[in-house]
């Protein structure tokens, strides 16, 4: 079966930010963190905001096989999951960023800070306890 054309961020443990177009993704459940080439940052931002693969391919010069390989890795890392939703339009700033990008599409994974990322200080919080409280079983 073909993958869906549209993806979503796989879970609430996957958190991400971008700084001047450069994306960083953390998996709070494993402590792994991910960085991208400039092209990869643009594609991650598009995919994670629900833009369909087709729209990304049409708006960029990325080869279809490269895009497919990149998405496979994101699925394999557990960062994305297929979404059953209509594709969102590709924002203009991502189109510009992809046009200006010079590096091949890539994603790097690191796990040297796992201890730090799993624990502190990003976890979502529900109650102002003022002191560590035993984490509730999910």
């Amino acid at each position, binding site marked *: 079966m073909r993958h869906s054309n549209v993806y979503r961020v796989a879970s609430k443990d996957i958190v991400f930010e971008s700084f001047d177009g450069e994306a960083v993704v953390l998996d709070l459940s494993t402590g792994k963190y991910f960085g991208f080439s400039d092209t990869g940052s643009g594609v991650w931002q598009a995919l994670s905001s629900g833009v369909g693969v087709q729209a990304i391919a049409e708006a960029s010069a990325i080869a279809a096989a490269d895009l497919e390989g990149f998405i496979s890795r994101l699925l394999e890392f557990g960062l994305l999951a297929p979404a059953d939703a209509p594709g969102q339009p590709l924002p203009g700033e991502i189109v510009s960023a992809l046009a200006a990008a010079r590096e091949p599409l890539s994603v790097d994974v690191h796990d040297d800070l796992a201890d730090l990322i799993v624990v502190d*200080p990003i976890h979502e*919080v529900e109650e102002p306890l003022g*002191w560590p409280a035993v*984490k509730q079983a999910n």
Partner: protein
Amino acid sequence: MKLSVIMPVYNRERFIGAALRSLLRQRDAADLDIIVIDDGSTDGSAQAVRSMMAEAPCIRLFRQENTGVTRARNSGLRQLRPETELVSFLDSDDISPAGRFGADVGLFRKDASLELTYSNMMLVDKIDDGTLEPTPDSRSITVRGIHLSAAIFSRRLVERIGHFDEDFIQAEDTDYLLRSFEIGPRFVLPDTLALYYRRHAGNMTRLEDVQSREFMRAILKSMKRRRIDPSLKPIEGIFELKKLADWRFF
């Protein structure tokens, strides 16, 4: 050995006296130089510091307009004495445990090539301001966390690391420590208890949204540095926070 301890303060009149006393009780461990940067406090913090300076000439107080903790730490670095050999940090609401400097400064005395010690910290919710120790009913957890006070840096290493990155509103300490370890210093991880980290409602690290974004920026910057310069080291096996994994902070 000349040890300079940098302490930025902003409106902490209630705590800074205890923080300073926790350093002064360790004057036998090193030739202590305490650099207090008052970052535009509007309360009695500066007065609290001044009231201790007559008895403790090793405290130097510098006042500036409020610029935020990152720039305040850099102001502290600029005040290092030419003869400063070791550098550490203590926040104005935390406590340096008795014997903390004696233990780790001794390691530098024994090994002239040592550049960094990185020890344990205890998170604690009640500290007796008289004894400067956790109260018997306080809750505590000891970890090798991410905190500047866990470290003593050689002056040479401080020069290699450079200044705190003023792009950061927070997590400047995380960024600084990541940069410290990336450049491959000669370090040891002693089991010294280097800090009582006071958990209270006013702690800065409660600003969750900004904090998490700044933390992620520190990680992104570290990845970029290592991508550009493959000679930089991964930061493996330093932080040991597993004991915190079953706990959650608000």
